[in-house]
């Protein structure tokens, strides 16, 4: 897949490069190459933006910063210090990547920076750089910098051919990089960050590192292309690079093309550049930005997923529309030139692709096979639990753990030991601190004081993905699947980044085994949106065990289920426990806890109230009082 894809890019590059080298022999007017040059520049820019903002969902308004740093590096080094142009390109790329890493290091530190705040932060970056450039006369000083014309090889006829080739190199490299990223672990990590970042981190994805890598790639490509941009415009000013035009263009292009696939930005860039060119050529220069703004506003409402996904569904219709409209206009030949006909054809194809289709929901329902029958003895819970006979060594040790939220003491002085092979039921009234304890164990929260060790390793302060690698895995009360992936790939993700990572192909195979444990194999190809709550909760469990945990934390994994579904889920928990995984289950239904747990821990108002075997604990007067109130206990005795 990867080798063939990259071979394809080499072929495309060779063919497109040949156009420039033998342009005069082919009789191709230079105008087409200039237009293609523009398209290639924007393909590189949109692809650069998309690696971070499309793949990982961190929308940036700061693309101009990377273009600007690239352009100014080339302009200043070449124009003021006489450095050879070819040398300035890699330097520009590296500078821009360093800036990107700086932005990332600031922005990705905080979890609350997702979404709008990240976008606004990136909006500020070009403003800062513009101010710096204006003030510093070594860089710009407010006058702009002239970029010297670079020497180009004599086998090229014109400077424009040279620019085209340079843009081609960068664009093909950028798209190939986006392709490669999408088809490796890197791309899967970014997709999981886009869908549910906290979950991804909890399953072992080093989200911070992948986000930094993504923003570095964005900076690298943006800077290299920006360096070429300097050569192209010949005179770099603050306004030409640090404005909002560049972010506007890349966002419109990527949203139009589709943000989750490497093809998206390419499609979007080509369509937008063609529209812009024809508008300018027909004397509608003043309408260019209006059309662009309208495309963005309408698309976000009508087709937020963009062209690519829809084109894959209607490839032939689009091709027919393109050929038919272009062909008819060419035959009639009463208006415009070849490029006008072609652009009209492209617009027709875009319209066909974006045309609202029929609802697809019924198809999904039909495709859904019946659930595999559950073996009766399993459902009845007759599978012997090997582990409860002899608890092993201490696996989880909490010492005097406390967690305060402002003045609220969610947990205070909780000490708890969990031994390998136990199935601990964690119960308590609402607000007693159960979920807080789970969050502390999984690393989603940090304790205010106290220590937590898992398998002898202190986990306080470790990033959640490191804790996952130590051997803690969890489910969420409200299931948070990766919505863009199939059920199988949701589980495969967890295997790819879990304690014993495997490449995608192997992970998909292994995922089937995990789906077997929870009886979800028949839904392996479904998307999470197509399955019900019970099945989503089972998927949570499958994903959690796929990381090969030592301890599995089930946070109200049975909430909202009907009695039959609860029995099925109980059987699944038993089966997971039988594979040797220690389980902590937070549950409100005491019937379930009594049935399952080898030991029950009761929390009340943030403190440990009781701890022991289920029967003793459930008869403890303190526990009854906490659950039913003082009065009920008094009447009972």
């Amino acid at each position: 897949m990867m080798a063939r894809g990259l071979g394809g890019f080499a072929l495309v590059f060779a063919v497109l490069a040949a156009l420039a080298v033998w342009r005069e022999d082919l009789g191709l007017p230079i105008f087409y190459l200039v237009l293609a040059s523009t398209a290639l520049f924007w393909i590189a820019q949109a692809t650069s933006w998309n690696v971070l903002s499309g793949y990982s969902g961190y929308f940036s308004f700061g693309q101009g910063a990377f273009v600007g740093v690239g352009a100014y590096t080339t302009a200043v080094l070449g124009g003021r210090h006489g450095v050879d142009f070819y040398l300035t390109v890699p330097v520009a790329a590296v500078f821009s990547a360093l800036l990107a890493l700086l932005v990332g290091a600031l922005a990705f530190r905080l979890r609350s920076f997702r979404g709008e705040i990240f976008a606004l932060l990136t909006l500020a970056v070009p403003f800062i750089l513009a101010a710096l450039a204006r003030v510093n006369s070594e860089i710009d000083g407010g006058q702009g910098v002239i970029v010297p014309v670079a020497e180009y090889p004599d086998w090229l006829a014109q400077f424009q051919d040279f620019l085209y080739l340079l843009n081609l190199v960068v664009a093909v490299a950028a798209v190939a990089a986006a392709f490669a990223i999408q088809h490796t672990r890197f791309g899967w990590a970014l997709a999981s960050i886009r869908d549910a970042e906290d979950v991804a981190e909890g399953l072992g994805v080093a989200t911070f590192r992948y986000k930094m890598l993504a923003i570095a790639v964005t900076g690298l490509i943006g800077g290299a292309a920006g360096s070429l941009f300097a050569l192209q415009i010949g005179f770099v000013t603050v306004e030409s690079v640090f404005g909002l035009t560049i972010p506007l263009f890349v966002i419109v292009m990527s949203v139009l093309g589709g943000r989750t696939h490497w093809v998206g930005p390419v499609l979007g860039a080509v369509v937008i550049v063609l529209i812009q060119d024809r508008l300018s050529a027909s004397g509608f220069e003043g309408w260019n930005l209006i059309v662009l703004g309208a495309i963005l506003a309408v698309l976000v409402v009508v087709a937020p997923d963009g062209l690519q996904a829809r084109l894959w569904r209607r490839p032939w219709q689009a091709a027919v529309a393109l050929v038919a409209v272009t062909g008819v206009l060419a035959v009639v030949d009463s208006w415009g030139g070849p490029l006008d006909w072609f652009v009209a054809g492209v617009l027709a194809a875009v319209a066909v692709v974006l045309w609202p289709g029929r609802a697809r929901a019924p198809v999904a329902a039909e495709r859904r096979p019946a659930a595999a029958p559950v073996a009766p003895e399993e459902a009845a819970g007759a599978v012997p639990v090997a582990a409860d006979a002899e608890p092993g060594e201490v696996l989880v040790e909490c010492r005097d753990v406390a967690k305060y939220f402002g003045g609220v003491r969610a947990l205070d002085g909780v000490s708890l030991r969990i031994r390998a092979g136990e199935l601990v039921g964690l119960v308590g009234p609402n607000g007693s601190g159960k979920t807080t304890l789970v969050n502390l164990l999984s690393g989603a929260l940090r304790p205010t004081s106290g220590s937590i060790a898992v398998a002898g390793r202190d986990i306080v302060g470790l990033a959640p993905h490191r804790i996952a690698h130590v051997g803690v895995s969890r489910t969420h009360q409200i299931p948070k699947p990766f919505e863009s992936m199939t059920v199988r790939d949701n589980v495969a993700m967890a295997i790819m980044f879990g304690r014993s990572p495997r490449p995608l192909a192997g992970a998909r195979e292994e995922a089937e085994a995990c789906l077997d444990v929870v009886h979800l194999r028949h839904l392996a190809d479904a998307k999470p949106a197509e399955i019900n709550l019970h099945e989503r909760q089972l998927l949570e469990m499958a994903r959690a065990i796929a990381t090969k945990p030592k301890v599995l934390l089930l946070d109200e994994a049975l909430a909202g289920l009907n009695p039959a579904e609860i029995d099925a889920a109980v059987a699944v928990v038993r089966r997971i426990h039988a594979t040797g995984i220690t389980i902590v289950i937070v549950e409100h239904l005491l019937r379930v806890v009594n049935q399952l747990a080898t030991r029950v821990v009761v929390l009340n108002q943030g403190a440990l109230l009781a701890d022991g075997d289920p029967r003793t604990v459930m008869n403890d007067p303190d526990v009854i009082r906490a659950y039913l109130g003082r009065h009920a206990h008094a009447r009972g005795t």
Partner: protein
Amino acid sequence: MTTLQAALSGALVGGMFAVMAAGLSLTWGMLRVINLAHFGLILVGAYLTFELATSWGLDPILTIVVTVPLMFLVGAGLQWAFDRLGVEGFASLLVSFGLLIIVMQTVSNVWSADFQRMEGDVNPYATGSVSIGRFVFPAPTLIAFVFAVVIVVAADQVLRRTFAGRALRAFAEDRAVASAFGIDHRRLGMVLAGLSAASAAVAGMLFALGNAVTPSTPFEWIGIVFAVVILGGIGQVGGVLLAGVLVGTLSAVVSATWSPALSPLVLFSAIILALLFRPHGLLTPASRGAR
């Protein structure tokens, strides 16, 4: 002495940023609509003030009699469309970015891309100033500050004391519960968005009073105004005035002591620091974020 004068003038200028930011902050906080088109409305407000004063000879301040109702309708209509189409949160940022670009380009097509400024004969406030002791305050910034205080205090009181204000706050806090208590969020949302747009008309007038405008002026506002919104705490009008004054003072002091070109640098660095340590606004402690 000059620094103090600069700081005081800056504080007054901050009032204008507070007017610009108030509507933005409220629609973001209450309706979850991040409306970049708000800057487009301010721009149109400024141009309408210019046009009405220059062609019709209206007193510049009185132009708001025309522009405020007009903008109210535009804002309410826009919110109606956003609500019907389910545009909020991130989608609203993108859609309104598109709208902003459309407005800016349209303004450029109508009034040309050149600077436009109300001349002294139509704008009696341009050259006026008030001296207090040894300090001199230009009339436009003084007027802007008065408007800022009036608008912010009025908005704050309405939100605190009236039924509609309480309903809006309840809605911002928990939509499902608020709807269950019979709060008609559609109508309230349209009223709020309308008022926010009306404040944009005032902001536009205030800007045109003391400055020349070009179609690309909104780019100069976006950074500072978002800084004010975020520093003030999203959805908190009181914070907006404080943050506006703070931002105005800081940027004026930097301009006076170092260089005008450096002021965005210091300003945005300050914003980034604030975002890192006080992501929910200056008045809200970091540990008590609403979302």
